[in-house]
């Protein structure tokens, strides 16, 4: 059957199982938008293309399926860039389709013409420029396959306008020929046995669980490894949700703002079992003093990651789920009571140091308290999408994530303005789930236009703006690392209740600790979207903190209560 390039795009999206896409039309992609009218795919009109990419990313993370975004040439495609980079660094399967000027104008600086494949080359897993309609089916088939297989990532397809309009016989290829792309999923037997032997012999092992656990759906296998071998687990930020956080073996998050006892356990471990994580500088601190006594088993689907930052004694290239299934039969139970007793000693005063246990709650509204109350008030039975900065770290620390893949957040790129658009994508991916966006007032002001999308799509999102009137994490760094020379951290904002009202959304403002629970209840009871502004204390810090250049054990801890009173006065 004959189809135009534009028709093929929708025909192929349908065949790939795509039901929803996020985009913004424009001149060079008009033929594709024209053809959309005839196809049963839901298009969400965002208010800025960056948010189309972030929403597609959120959708992909929430469902495990490929998220699709679309934009026109030039400015439209350029606005996708940040969202694609975000998907790239967090290995999120996204396909971006952009219109390009007519092929004979490519390279001539025509109106809205930019070398999009050139610009996006380092921030996509792969990209294509299509200038002949005949290439389109093969390219799209490959793009979806590349985006979702191996280590997932964004793939961009730039389609010239004449290729969108030209027609030819349409046949969707059944097979893919990519001689240079063959992800390895199974680990080699020799390394599997070697890894098992290391694990069985270890006295002080720690499992480091990363995003790969969630991407490969290895939650059950991770749990089984931890339980069968009696091994504590610490997660990266993106590994949160790999193992329930109430599980007794879960030490929770590691790294710069991780739990102190998790970091200490890593530093004193004799074996690190790294699963689908990449030893990012935010989880290792200074590499020179990182886990000095540990041997390292590193399982990752991307061979580049193995040995990149931390030398691996056993490197296994493979899919986390498959490799764990291979290793599990060899794992023996060990008591390791001395190790667990040591971890308990490190855990020791963590509770007393917790800012929520320092008697401050009566007088001031603290952001950690707000997050904790969202967890308590919802029974933890929601999907949380957090933004970037202090709000993100407090969410990671004070929300107990017990559901599989419960947290959606921007890790690698740290994309401010992620939460609201990603929550839009998440809500489409999990329509039966209650979805909360937890966002600071800085990140929220990057996302305000998307409130109109929320309204237009009738999405019952719950948005919690943690408003401290400043760029909190930047302020914390300036306080601790730049002698409190505050530079450009005060950020004003609109009256958020009136803003919500202007968009036709229920808005509420909370500034007293006593009203938090009620506001959360009210937000949940409202059938539509709700914007809740929590006016919190501006000058509190996220602790523990591993300062840049410091070792993981050299954490800055929150002072103990006795010493803290003076500081509390100051705050």
């Amino acid at each position: 059957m004959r189809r135009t390039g534009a028709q093929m795009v929708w025909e192929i999206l349908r065949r790939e199982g795509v039901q929803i896409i996020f985009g913004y039309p424009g001149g060079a992609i008009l033929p594709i938008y024209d053809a959309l009218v005839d196809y049963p795919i839901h298009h969400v009109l965002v208010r800025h293309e960056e948010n189309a990419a972030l929403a597609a990313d959120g959708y992909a993370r929430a469902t495990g399926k490929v998220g699709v975004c679309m934009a026109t040439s030039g400015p439209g495609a350029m606005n996708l860039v940040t969202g694609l980079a975000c998907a790239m660094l967090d290995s999120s399967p996204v396909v971006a389709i952009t219109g390009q000027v007519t092929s004979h104008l490519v390279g001539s600086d025509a109106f809205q013409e930019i070398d999009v494949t050139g610009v996006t080359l380092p921030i996509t897993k792969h990209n294509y420029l299509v200038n002949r309609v005949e290439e389109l089916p093969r390219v799209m088939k490959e793009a979806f396959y590349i985006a979702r297989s191996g280590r997932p990532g964004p793939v961009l397809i730039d389609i010239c306008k004449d290729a969108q309009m030209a027609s030819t016989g349409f046949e969707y290829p059944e097979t893919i020929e990519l001689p240079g792309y063959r992800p390895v999923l199974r680990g080699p037997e020799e390394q599997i046995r070697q890894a098992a032997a290391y694990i069985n012999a270890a006295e002080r092992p720690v499992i480091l669980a990363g995003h790969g656990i969630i991407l490969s759906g290895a939650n059950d296998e991770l749990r089984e490894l931890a339980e069968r071998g009696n091994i504590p687990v610490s997660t990266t930020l993106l590994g949160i949700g790999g193992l329930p956080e109430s599980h007794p073996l879960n030490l929770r998050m590691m790294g710069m703002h991780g739990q102190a006892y998790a970091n200490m356990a890593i530093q004193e471990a004799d074996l690190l079992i790294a699963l689908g994580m990449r030893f990012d500088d935010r989880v290792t601190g200074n590499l020179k003093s990182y886990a000095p006594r540990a041997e390292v088993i590193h399982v990752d689907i991307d061979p580049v990651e193995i040995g990149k930052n931390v030398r691996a004694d056993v490197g296994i290239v493979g899919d986390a789920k498959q490799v764990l299934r291979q290793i599990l039969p060899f794992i023996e139970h060990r008591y390791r009571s001395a190790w667990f007793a040591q971890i308990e000693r490190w855990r020791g005063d963590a509770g007393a140091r917790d800012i929520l246990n320092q008697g401050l709650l009566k007088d001031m509204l603290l952001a950690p308290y707000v997050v904790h109350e969202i967890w308590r008030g919802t029974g933890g039975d929601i999907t949380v999408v957090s933004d970037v900065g202090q709000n993100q770290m407090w969410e990671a620390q004070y929300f107990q994530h017990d559901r599989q893949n419960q947290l959606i957040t921007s890790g690698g790129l740290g994309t401010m303005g992620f939460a609201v658009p990603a929550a839009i994508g998440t809500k489409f991916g999990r329509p039966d789930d209650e979805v909360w966006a937890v966002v600071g007032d800085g990140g929220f002001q990057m996302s305000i236009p998307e409130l109109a999308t929320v309204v237009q799509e009738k999405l019952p999102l719950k948005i919690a703006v943690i408003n401290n009137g400043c760029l909190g994490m930047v302020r914390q760094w300036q306080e601790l690392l730049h002698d409190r020379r505050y530079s450009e951290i005060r950020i004003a904002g609109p009256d958020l209740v009136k803003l919500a009202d202007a968009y036709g959304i229920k808005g509420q403002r909370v500034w007293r600790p006593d009203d938090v629970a009620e506001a959360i209840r009210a937000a949940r009871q409202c059938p539509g979207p709700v914007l809740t502004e929590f006016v919190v204390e501006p000058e509190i810090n996220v602790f523990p903190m591993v300062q840049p250049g410091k070792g993981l054990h050299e954490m800055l801890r929150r002072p103990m209560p006795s010493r803290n009173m003076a500081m509390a006065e100051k705050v």
Partner: protein
Amino acid sequence: MPPGDDSSTRKSTHILVALVENKPGVLNRVASLFRRRSFNIESLTVGHTESPDISRMTIVVDTSKTSAALVEKNLNKLINVIDVQDVTHAPIVVRDLALIKVTAPAERRAEIMQLVDIFRAKIVDVYAESVIVEVTGPEAKIDSMVELLHPFGIIEMVRTGRVAMVRGSGYRAPYVLSDNGTNGVRVNPTPNL
């Protein structure tokens, strides 16, 4: 602990041979990778192979063993790269080609021709006051040829950069597999060429 010890951080010359799909933009992807990871390329040659769909690159980098392994893995990660091997320590034939335009007045021409003979080079162009010498061979041979021609006055010179091929009947030297931290696991099995 960070990867690498003294022996793996010391810099030396590494020769990588990459088979890539013959498509527009592939060279850009390879070059972009080197730029991005700050690897300095000493030479890079690209040309056709026996198969019209596949081009072959010979890439020479001066770097540590650890970085060379990282380059190899990063190259392999590119979708359009079919295969990469580090042939530095394999039995290989390495060749470089140079065209050297030398000042050659009639009275000194015999001297030049003698040198050309010794080096089994060729004179491929003769002009009243100059000749062009073509020489191929391993890099060291060309270096000494250049050195010896220098006193005559080199007007201009161009070198192709090194190309390399593993000796023997196989495409890939079986023991070349580098221990790059993946314990011999290759992303891309040797293509059936």
